[in-house]
């Protein structure tokens, strides 16, 4: 997509709420407006993590379905 991804983490097989905690920790290292790429599982993870990020003011800008996982790009809010 030609996006400038600052950091990438793989949260495959990391369950709730640890996946959200790790996502937040990774976002903490970024500046506002920078992008984080996260690999999230189907099911609870793709349902809960983006919604919790929304509550905290971050924005999901793209979701790509890879089968059992999703590649999610998040812009730090």
């Amino acid at each position, binding site marked *: 997509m030609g996006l400038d991804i600052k950091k990438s983490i793989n949260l495959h097989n990391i369950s709730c709420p640890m996946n959200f905690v790790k996502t937040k920790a990774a976002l903490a290292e970024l500046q506002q407006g920078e992008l984080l790429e996260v690999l999230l599982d189907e099911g609870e993870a*793709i*349902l809960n993590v*983006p919604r919790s990020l929304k509550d905290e003011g971050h924005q999901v800008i*793209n979701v790509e379905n890879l089968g059992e996982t999703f590649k999610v790009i998040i812009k730090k809010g």
Partner: protein
Amino acid sequence: MFKINQEIVNQIFKHGESDAPLEACGYLAGKDGIVTRCYPMDNKDRSEEHFTLDPEEQFKVIREANSLGLNILAVYHTHPATPARPSNEDIRLAYDPNIVYVIASLSDKEIKAFKIKKGEVLNLKIEIEGLKICGLELDLAAMKKFGMIQQKQKGFFAMRLHTVGGDLTVAQLQRIADIAKKYGEGFVHLSTRQGVEIHGVHNKYLEIARKELAEVGIKMGACGPRVRIVVACPGEATCRWGIIDTKEMAKELDSRYFREDTPHKFKLSVTGCPHNCAKATENDIGIMGGMLPRWEEDKCINCDLCLNVCPTEAITKEDNQYKLNEEKCIYCSICTSSCPTSAWVGAKTGYTVFIGGTMGKIPRLATRLKALAEKEESYRLVERALRYYQENGRKKERFGHMIDRIGVDKVKEEILNGP
């Protein structure tokens, strides 16, 4: 006139059946002419046609009754195969003109009382009264109506309490614990439908336990063919998915219908959203909060999250246009609450009404009567559905099975648009 309690009558028949084909016999004791206790005793004769009490046992029972302030009011015996009237043998052997002879015929399922004076038989009018619970004279079937359920242990009851949506205050919980300790067996049982039961309460404590529970606002529950306690999930009050106020609706339904008689048991549930935690589709009537989404193009950033979280693939994408397939949508609000830019918005929220769900012996998932009704409309439909079942349901036929017998389309049509 001879007054006897239903519980005692049951005990006499039970004794008779366990000793049949021999005659069973015993004493009935009580106070002020009312029998309160049954003492099953041994028939020394071991005969199918006559009986003799064992003098030693007689003495023991009389002493025990006297120690409780009771007098022996009657001698009972059973006739396993003949009617409830004194045989020649009974008349010949009657020794006390003041005592009442109670005869229970197992073959005729009938109980009668007599006095026998010098060979002459005097028929007494017998009045069977229920236990005195809730200020009423009740029999066991009627007690079930008030959530007092006889256990297999003779004389002991499970007290099923009334809750709405499974909510109890701390004071209520403390009182329940207190009662379970004092009159029960020191534990409570939680039912599968958010009910609380206190087990092992002897019938002599039922009324006092009931009163002590009532002091903190706990009513008795219900059992048998009637509207049971209303189940609800926490809904909008605490749950982030909650679309409707489940507690308010559960309370309203409870106040309108709780304990109303129905052909068979009748269960209501209110669930806050299509996650269906309160299992609206497994109840005779279920109400489910729901939200119909609408896509607003100008807000959308084409992230595709909605496509990937919709549980039913109701959202499709064509040329950066996101479309809703209403046929597939279950109104779950996952898209509206997930969309990072709130491009999916709630176009309409409402109350989806389900009818005819049941688990139990013959499970059946509910039929959707109406999607996203207005609140008042959903109350109206509940009312009509319940009345329809009361009019058309057969005994021992759950609502859903009635619907299948009559036909889903016909029932839906008549509830929705009938007179």
